[in-house]
């Protein structure tokens, strides 16, 4: 039973120009209650790895540079 990759559009967006994860910031990854954010090994910036979002907003509120935007997940909009 091989596993498929089903695409979903993710609700949390990170503005890479503003994100300072490559300078060592991990605030959003540290505090996300669902633990769905990670730092990309490719870009050094934060991104939403798992589409398991409560659209609760600590990531956006606590981001020191205003790089994170929380949208309502598409299925709920």
């Amino acid at each position, binding site marked *: 039973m091989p596993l498929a990759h089903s695409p979903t559009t993710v609700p949390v967006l990170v503005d890479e120009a503003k994100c300072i994860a490559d300078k060592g910031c991990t605030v959003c990854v540290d505090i996300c*209650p669902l633990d769905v954010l990670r730092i990309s090994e490719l870009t050094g910036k934060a991104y939403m790895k798992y589409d398991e979002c409560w659209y609760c907003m*600590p990531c956006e509120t606590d981001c020191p540079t205003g790089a994170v935007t929380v949208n309502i997940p598409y299925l*709920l909009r």
Partner: protein
Amino acid sequence: MNVWSDEIAQADCEVLVIGGGTAGPMAAYKAKTKNPGARVVLLEKANVKRSGAICMGMDGLNNAVIPGHATPEQYTREITIANDGICDQAPVYKYAQRCFEIIQELDRFGIRFLKDETGDYDVKKVHHNGTYVLPMPNGDTVKKALYRQLRRAQVLISNRYMATRLLTGHDSRIAGAIAVNTRTAQFLVIRAKTVILCLGAAGRLGLPHSGYLFGTYENPANSGDGYAMAYHGGAALANLECFQINPLIKDYNGPACAYVAGPFGAYTANNEGRRFIECDYWSGQMMLEFYNELQSGKGPVFLKLDHLAGETIGEIENILHRVERPSRGRFHERRGTNYRERMVEMHVSEIGFCSGHSASGVFVDEFARTTVPGLYAAGDMANVPHNYMLGAFTNGAVAGEHAIDLAAQVDFAAFDDGDVTLERERVLAPTRREDGIPPNQIEYKTRRFVNDYLQPPKVTRKYRIAQERFGEIREDLEGAMVARDPHELLRALEASSILDCAEMAATASLFRTESRWGLYHYRVDHPERDDLNWRCHTILYKVDGVMACEKRAIAPYVVPVDDREQAAYRRQRIPQPA
């Protein structure tokens, strides 16, 4: 690449608090400040800074018993009635007596409460009888304020550890807990003299109408792990058939919220814009009328604010779009729902367990003790009805103070090392498979069947089918579930808690052969309330590896309730003109 750690870490402590949301931080804080020399560990699946139901704060206290506005006796009576008489009053009365002191303590932590021009607390009326709702103007700062106190008291915080099972000693006392790191899958065995469970509601039980697994009313991290652990640890659970079902903004699936907007003049209305319920306080009886209105053709049901003045609505928006679930403002904006012009469409939520709103939880007494010696429970998962956030804080404090004293009198309970080995095998089984069924599919299927068969009105035949389906999913979960990294393992463990809770919901509901608590336990095959046979608790527990139920008598009331008062919550519907 091997993402799995083989290491087992060990730790000892006097008091282990599991869950760092609302009750947990207060329990840990109280235990540590009462005995600063003791080791108090606070274990959290997410990060204590932003975990639990109040990760974005709270707009107010829903059950503040403040001298001059309400009395502990009046509150205890109101909750007894709201819960159809099924209530051991001692823990409710204890809460009502202590909660004002906790409000003052939160005030000292820097959390402000609304006061009038004379400096008195500006309490609002939302319940049927009493006045208990107190707004929090800076409610967004709650977690920060708590975290500061935990750091100051030097509570040991372990984030990103998910507890999986309790350890029980040879003498049946609590011995500690087993946990796994959600980023590394490292195992942690914590020996503890006392353990306090504060793991929140089982909020990921039913499936939201949107189909989005994480679009729940409760913080979806509250996946019922506490209920499952208490059950497997041998503790009794009470009245699980008294489901949590809430009136929520349709699709968004969060509160609208009538407790905030009601005191300003907003109310629940049908599609004609007319009121149909007497009172917006959440009770099973209120939910039944809400459900009936939806079924009658007078739905959808709405929260109506469009008759209020612009400034009033501005004030309401300033609360609702900033605290608790601030993204609801974004949701309304995208759909063009301006409170000034349009009513907010509401719907009946999926089911869950939560004593914070209804009465489904681990059985506890007035010291937050469960039926397992040395094991405590507080907050949404502990069976103190309609307990809300202030109940979590207050009963967390009660648990912490009692547990730290008990820990000073006892030694660690000896347990079987084989229990750790067995648990490790169970937890890591999904990581040992090359392929199989991923946790999200196991979870989706469980929760869809919860909706199909367990959502009230409850039909016996449907419940029997649900039990068969859950049995089939259990075979898949235990024999074929696969996790490819520690994050998927976290979800796999949650899927296991969810399935446990689904089975408990079915078993407890089938046991109580009457209808009670309005929609929460509306059994079509037993439509009447039967006080003669069922004015008692339903206790669910594990005996010889099997789920069992029994009746438990309600403790004699501390505060008498007369028959006329008992009926207050049953008169919900406003008579409509013919």
